[in-house]
Structure formats: structure tokens, C-alpha cells
């Protein structure tokens, strides 16, 4: 998932170093909430069923409570159904800039009080902005639930009095620094922008990344901030999950007390799907300050959790997860022509994409990489996959699903997953249905998905090459 993440956590540096991994695998992990429940229900009893209570306030705020008293902490996780897909070209980066402002103070909790209370409690908080949604979370000792709800409701209901031109200018600088830090001053850092510019037409959502452009960030005005807030940061566009060491009746009362009076907003306009299909292969070459060339192959795939999505996720596993995966084994392990390879399928609300990324070893060109990848893809399209490969992938997916239930809060934690299901499907407890999708995938489904979605002549081929070495790029 393409997200811009704003860490206020003490592990920030460590976190950022895994950011690329995170970008590539976040939804993959969310997506890997596999089944096997069908095989394992007897063994695990009800331990995989997440007990939740969902209800809606009169103002439209959706509330999901999950009690888990095993540790004395509480996770407050809130998703707003707005992301960079809601932006207009020429005003990119706005949803994310706005996310930064959410930490800067609201009418009754001014000037950094948000961080002071949460960090001062020994807790953690963070937020991220994606194409389709923006999320915020905090984890605090459970006795801080009420202060956190006060803060969270204040910035939902009373943000604007806290936002001044000065605050806006300052966070604009911070976001520009983030862009430098995470994109411009990173090797291969501009690749994602190029890919999405090439994959989606001008003016269409997903053509630009949540981080936006430096020029558009400069252009964002205080009026833009206010309009954006009034439209999108309304209770009827939000989903609140509270999980952990809570008392359900008491928590319900607090939620009503702090959020109940925030007025419902207008109906939210949603961006619509458009025909984004590629008519032919697009080749793009970009020079960068890097030692080794890297190739990116991207296709349009399917929307989040639609037919084909599970098969494509399993396909990506079979292509590049573990030493025995097809691309790793062939390119990295046996031929040793590549330094690393990864692949992923990600479904978003309006569209999905499948990507393969490979770094060539010294002495090899990206044409070599493209050919080697094509060969492996063709094998799958023609001869399908082995039963053991499929089962290995299903087993890992099932295990990963259980592993990720270990953590209550944070990105990809239990409370985040509940919100993801709720925002996109209106049902937080969709674990079982989601799991079943993977279990249902047959060998032929993976073969068909490869043939149907990974067409050789309709894809984006991005070559990033060392400065002055255009000849290393992938040629038709």
C-alpha cells in the first residue's frame, strides 16, 4: 500500500528503515488474512474470532469496541475515508499535509498537547495517508482512555481554531522535508511517482502519490485546509475502533460524551472509477544516483478483495517469497544475475495493481532482467504451478494471519485491521470471509490470473539506471 507515514514513535528511525518493506507488503499482509480457519477451527477453537461490538452514533460515527484485557493498554484507532484519491491534480499532497496538521492542536487542546499527553503517558501515536484513506492511532496505558478520547474528539470537532497560517507553513516545511528524506534523497526514491504517473492517466486518482509535489504543497492555502476539514473530517466519514483493556459500557458512555455532539457533515463525494486500462506497454527510463539498475514491471489488476485478488496474492508469493519462489530461485539463487526481487498485488478502492521489482547484479542489463522474468511468467501461464507451491503459500498465509493477531495496535495490528474491514466493507469482523478466499484458490486460478492480468504487451516498464548509463535500461 502506498502510504505516507508519520511516525511520532520512539522507534522512528528503525521504522523508517523498514519503510520500503512496509510499502510493499502492508496490504499484502492485510491481504494475507487467509483461511485455513476451515481446517483449523477445531484446533484453535474460538481464539481467532475477534469479539467486537459495532454501533453507530446519531451523527453517523461508526464505533467498534473490542475487549482484550491481556495487557493493560488500549488502542484508539480512527480511520477517515479520505485519501489522495480525493485530491485534484494541482492540489496534490493535501490529504497528507492535512494529516500532519491533525497533530498540531485543536481548539481546546492547543500547541502540541496531543503529543505531550500521549507521549507523556508512555504511549505511542502515528498516522498515515494512503490513496483511499487516512488513519490515526494511539496506544496508551488503559487509564488514559478518557484523555485520548477528549483529544481525538476535539480534533474531529474543533480543529480549525487550532490551525493558523504559521502552523500550516511550518508543517508544510516538515512535509517537504519528509519528501526529501523519503523520496528525493533515497536511492530509487522517485520510482513510485514515475510508476503511478505512467500507470494512471493525468487527472485520474492514483496518478500522483499521497506525498504530492513540492509545487502543490507550496500552493496549499489556509482556505484549502478549512474546506477539506469541513467536508471530510466529519463523524459520518469516520470509523473509530477502541480495543484492549476496556470496560464496554463505560467506554460507550465516554464515546457518546465526547463524540456524540459533533454535528454530522454533508454527504461525502466519492471519486469514481474510470477506464485506466493500458492499451500498450509504456517504457520509462530514469537516471538516478545509484550503483545498480532496477527494473519495475507494473500491471493493472483488480480492486481490493475482488475476484482474482486472492489468486494474484498467491501468485506473488509463488513468484518471490522465499528461496524456492520462482523468480528468487531462478534470478537470485541459481543464475545470480539479480541482487533481489519482490512482487506484490495490491487492490485499492478504484483499481488494483500487480508489480514486480528486480535489481540487476553488476554486469547485467535490465533487458536481461525483463527477459528472465518473462520466461518465468510464461512458464506459469503455460504449465501452471505445482501443488506444493500452492500449499506452501497457503500455509504461510494462514500462519501470517495468526501471527498478526498478536498485536493490538499500530499499523496492521488487530484494531487497524478491524477498521480496514469496516471502512471498506462495512463489517469489521470479516476475517472469516477473507480467510476463505485464499483457501478457495485452486492451481488453475493462479495460472489463469497470471495469463489474464500479467499481459506482456500491456504493462508499465520502468528502468532506473545509474547516471549516464542509459544503455542498461530495458529495451523492447
Amino acid at each position, binding site marked *: 500500500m502506498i502510504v505516507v507515514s508519520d511516525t511520532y514513535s*520512539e522507534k522512528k528511525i528503525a521504522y523508517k528503515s523498514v519503510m520500503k518493506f512496509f510499502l510493499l507488503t502492508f496490504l499484502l499482509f492485510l491481504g494475507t488474512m487467509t483461511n485455513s480457519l476451515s481446517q483449523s477451527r477445531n484446533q484453535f477453537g474460538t481464539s481467532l474470532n475477534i469479539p467486537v461490538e459495532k454501533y453507530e452514533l446519531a451523527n453517523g460515527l461508526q464505533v467498534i469496541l473490542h475487549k482484550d484485557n491481556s495487557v493493560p493498554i488500549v488502542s484508539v484507532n480512527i480511520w477517515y475515508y479520505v485519501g489522495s484519491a480525493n485530491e485534484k491534480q494541482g492540489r496534490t499532497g493535501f490529504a497528507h499535509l492535512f494529516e500532519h496538521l491533525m497533530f498540531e492542536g485543536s481548539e481546546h487542546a492547543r500547541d502540541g498537547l496531543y503529543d505531550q499527553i500521549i507521549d507523556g503517558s508512555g504511549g505511542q501515536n502515528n498516522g498515515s495517508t494512503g490513496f483511499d484513506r487516512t488513519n490515526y492511532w494511539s496506544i496508551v496505558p488503559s487509564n488514559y482512555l478518557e484523555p485520548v478520547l477528549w483529544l481525538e474528539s476535539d480534533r474531529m470537532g474543533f480543529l480549525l481554531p487550532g490551525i493558523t497560517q504559521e502552523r500550516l507553513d511550518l508543517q508544510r516545511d516538515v512535509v517537504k522535508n519528509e519528501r526529501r528524506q523519503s523520496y528525493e534523497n533515497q536511492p530509487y526514491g522517485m520510482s513510485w511517482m514515475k510508476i503511478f504517473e505512467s500507470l494512471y492517466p493525468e487527472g485520474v486518482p492514483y496518478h500522483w502519490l499521497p506525498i504530492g509535489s513540492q509545487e502543490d504543497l507550496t500552493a496549499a492555502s489556509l482556505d484549502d485546509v478549512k474546506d477539506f476539514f469541513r467536508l471530510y473530517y466529519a463523524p459520518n466519514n469516520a470509523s473509530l475502533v477502541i480495543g484492549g483493556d476496556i470496560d464496554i459500557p463505560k467506554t460507550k458512555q465516554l464515546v457518546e460524551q465526547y463524540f456524540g455532539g459533533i454535528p454530522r457533515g454533508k454527504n461525502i463525494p466519492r471519486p469514481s472509477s474510470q477506464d485506466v486500462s493500458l492499451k500498450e506497454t509504456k517504457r520509462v527510463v530514469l537516471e538516478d544516483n545509484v550503483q545498480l539498475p532496477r527494473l519495475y514491471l507494473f500491471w493493472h489488476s483488480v480492486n481490493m478483495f475482488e475476484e482474482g485478488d486472492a489468486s494474484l496474492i498467491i501468485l506473488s508469493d509463488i513468484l518471490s517469497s522465499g528461496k524456492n519462489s520462482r523468480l528468487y530461485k531462478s534470478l537470485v539463487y541459481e543464475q545470480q544475475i539479480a*541482487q533481489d526481487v519482490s512482487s506484490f498485488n495490491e487492490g485499492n478502492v478504484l483499481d488494483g495493481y500487480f508489480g514486480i521489482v528486480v535489481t540487476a547484479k553488476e554486469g547485467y542489463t535490465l533487458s536481461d532482467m525483463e527477459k528472465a522474468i518473462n520466461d518465468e511468467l510464461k512458464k506459469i501461464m503455460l504449465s501452471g504451478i505445482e501443488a506444493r507451491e500452492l500449499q506452501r503459500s497457503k500455509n504461510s498465509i494462514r500462519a501470517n494471519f495468526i501471527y498478526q493477531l498478536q498485536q493490538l495496535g499500530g499499523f496492521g495490528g488487530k484494531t487497524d485491521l478491524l477498521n480496514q474491514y469496516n471502512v471498506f466493507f462495512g463489517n469489521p469482523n470479516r476475517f472469516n470471509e477473507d480467510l476463505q478466499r485464499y483457501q478457495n484458490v485452486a492451481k488453475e486460478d493462479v495460472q489463469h490470473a497470471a495469463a489474464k492480468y500479467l499481459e506482456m504487451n500491456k504493462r508499465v516498464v520502468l528502468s532506473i539506471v545509474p547516471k549516464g548509463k542509459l544503455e542498461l535500461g530495458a529495451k523492447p
Partner: protein
Amino acid sequence: MKSLIIYILLLSMTTNAFSQLDRTIQPQPVALPTLQLPTIQRAELANGLKLLIVEHHKLPVVTMQLVIQTGADADPNGKSGVARFTASMIDEGTKTKSSLEIADAFDFLGAQFSASASFDGSFLSVLFLKEHLEKTFELFSDVLLNPTFPQNEFERLQKELLTSLSQQKDRPQTVATNVFNKILYENHPYGNQISGDSTSVTNLSVNDIENFYKTYYLPNNATLIFVGAITKKEAIKISETFLGQWKKKSLATQKIQASKNPDSTMMYLVDKPGAPQTEIRIGNIGAPRSTKDYFTLSVAQHILGSSSGRLFLNLREEKGYTYGAYANFSFRKFAGPFVASAGVKTEVTDSSLIEFLFEINRMREETVPDTEFTMYKTAVIQRLLRMFETPSQISEQLASLVLYDLPDSYFSTLSNKYERVSQNDVQAISQKYLLPQRLVIVVVGDKEKILQPLEKLRIGKIVFCDTEGNVLK
């Protein structure tokens, strides 16, 4: 009945009435909950292998971590990278299984195996589902006891590592950290990268790996930590079955040379033409994990360098120079570095350095004001509540007991130890450990734009380095 309904209506009216809520009153936390600390159970096999077990039955998941108490600080001279390389070779072949077969077996179980090394230790860990205990343990013990370190796999990994070391030059963040360590520690092992550098890795052979393995991968130099859906009885039984034959041997003692701070502050510049940001590292040699100042230093580093600390608030939240500024002490067996860091916009490189030095000096010169001090100290104490949530987190905590020889009761004493830290203590240790006159300052950025402003600062002689920390003439 009717009156009850009215009562409920009234009650809900009072609690629901938005207008009645006075938002200017900041609600205060209720009484702090208590954390049930994990119960640590111990056992030892006849060969000296220690077992630490924490039962955690929330999910059918177990994590197992073997901690070997020797890491990269035992890399032989000129052969940095051996400890890490040994760990990465451990699952590349056993007497009965090939590299690919091992990977397939772990993956088929959905088990996540990893092997790594730090300066202080080497670690093999695996996260798996309880239902696969037997199979996972059998595999785990096979890679641990029967590695064959095949020549062809060694060569493959060596090439891969050399390539990735060359790729490091692309990342100014990594360059800055590596150059900083190399300059600060000179020939001390902490001046090396754990993965080694291109020269040392080129010189490695399978022999070096085998030697490291034979010398240090010993039951009497190791602790196996179990956390998850497993009982003490099960853990002992399976360890005896599969690791009972692991032979103990006498252990070589380690000698490490002393490290020393520079006599005066020096600045090292690595040119990265056209870079939109400058990566900054500033620091000196800190303290070992065993220092009696550990708790005071932990509070001090939180005040100065955490994500709600002074550097972050100053350089990011007030000035907008950076996406984040931090500082921390690396506590290891020997004195690790104290380092403050940030990536800052090129144009404000000099201004950022001024702020870094200002905050470092402020820690030394002023007592931290009461409210600020209470907030930071409370944070340090209360964050313990979320450090024991998952089996992996608990296992991490237990590994620190093993590596630094701390008692099982350690976690239950933490709050009190932090509680006793005073503002004067923090100022005193800042004077002792933050040394503005003896700093190593590394900047990686666009020389053409930053050199002149940096020269004007006059905070130390400026020396030019390449991306590997070699001084350029």
C-alpha cells in the same frame, strides 16, 4: 416501569448533552493499571544450555530464540563481518538437507526463521504455530547442530553481500552512520560495520565461518528462550530430545581494546553533489550497558532525543528544518556511541548544527524544568506497560537479561529505579557523557553549498572523507 424509563431518559440526556460537556477541562488519567509481568521459568540441560520459558497462551503461537553470547565484537582483526556471515550461513545446508530444502521446509510450516548478529550476540529465532512444534524444532536443531557451510553457498552470499555493501553508498543515511562509527572508534570493533566492509568480506573464507561457529556456537555459551503456547515441561522435553547431544567445550575469553574520544571536536564532510538534504551525525563515545548511570542516561536520552524530545521539538516542530531529529545512546557490552542525528534541508545545514549544539549544551548547563522533567520521566516509566504484549516482544526483553547478565527480577525493579532519577542526576550525567569539546561531527551533503557556511561556524576543523570514511587529502 415508567419512572425507570424517565430515569434512563434523564440519565442519557445528561450524558449525551453535548452542550453540557466542558471541553476546556482536560480529563486526567484514572489510576495506573498494573502490568502482570511474565513469569520467567528456568532450566538447564546437562551440556550447559540454559532455557528460559515464558508461557503465553493467548494464541497458538510460539517464538523460540537462541541467544549466543558472542557477536561481532569477537570478529577477528581484519575480518569484520564473520559473526553476521556465520549466522547467515547457518541455514545454507546441513548434513542431510540443502539450502533450498531447508527454506522449503520452514516455509511449508509457515514458520519464520531468521539468523542475525549484533555486536553483543548471535541470534537464531523462529516464530511458528504450536501445532508444528516438533517439526519446527527438529529443523531448527538440524541447522544449529549440523551446518555444513557449503562453499558454493558461501560464494553466492559473499557476492550478494559485496553487492549490497556497494549499494550502501547510494544511501546517505547509511553512509553518515558508517563514517561516524569508523571515525569515532578507529580500530575498535565498534568502528566496523557488523556486516563487514568490502575489504574484510572479500578476504573471508569458509574457514573463518567454521572457526567462528566451532569456537562460539556452544551450549555453554547459549540460552534458548521460549515464549508462547508452550509449557515448561514441553520445552525441556523437546530441548533434551533434539539438543541433548550438543557438546559443550571450554570457551575462549574475549579481549577488546579500549576506545577513546577525540581530543577536540572535528567535522568530517562527505560530498554528495546535488543532495537535497544533509545527513548529520554528532556524538561521542557513551557508556556500556552495565554502567550504574544506565537509568539516568535513559531518562536523559528521552529528554534530548526521543520523538517528543527537545531536538525533535526544536528542529522539526519549531524550525521545520527536518522530518525528524533524534539522539540516543547505544548500550552494549562495551561503551557504545552516543549519537544525535537528522537529515536536514541543505540550506539549513549550518543552522541545524547550531541547534544540535545548543540542545546538547543546554542538557549540561540547565536543570530540566519540573513539568518537563515529570512528563519525560513518567513516559519512560509507563512505556513499560506496552513492552510485554507479544511473544516476540517478551523474547526481546528476555534476551537483554541473558546478554547483560541481569536478574529475573530486573523488570519488576525498573519503575523504582527510574522513579529515583532526579533532575540533578540528569544534569550531572549530561556533563559527564555529552562532550561538546570532543565530538565527532559527520555531514553528508552537497559540499559546494554547505562548505562555506560550515566553515563560518568554527566548531572544529573540517576534514573531507569518502563514503567509507577514508580521509581524503
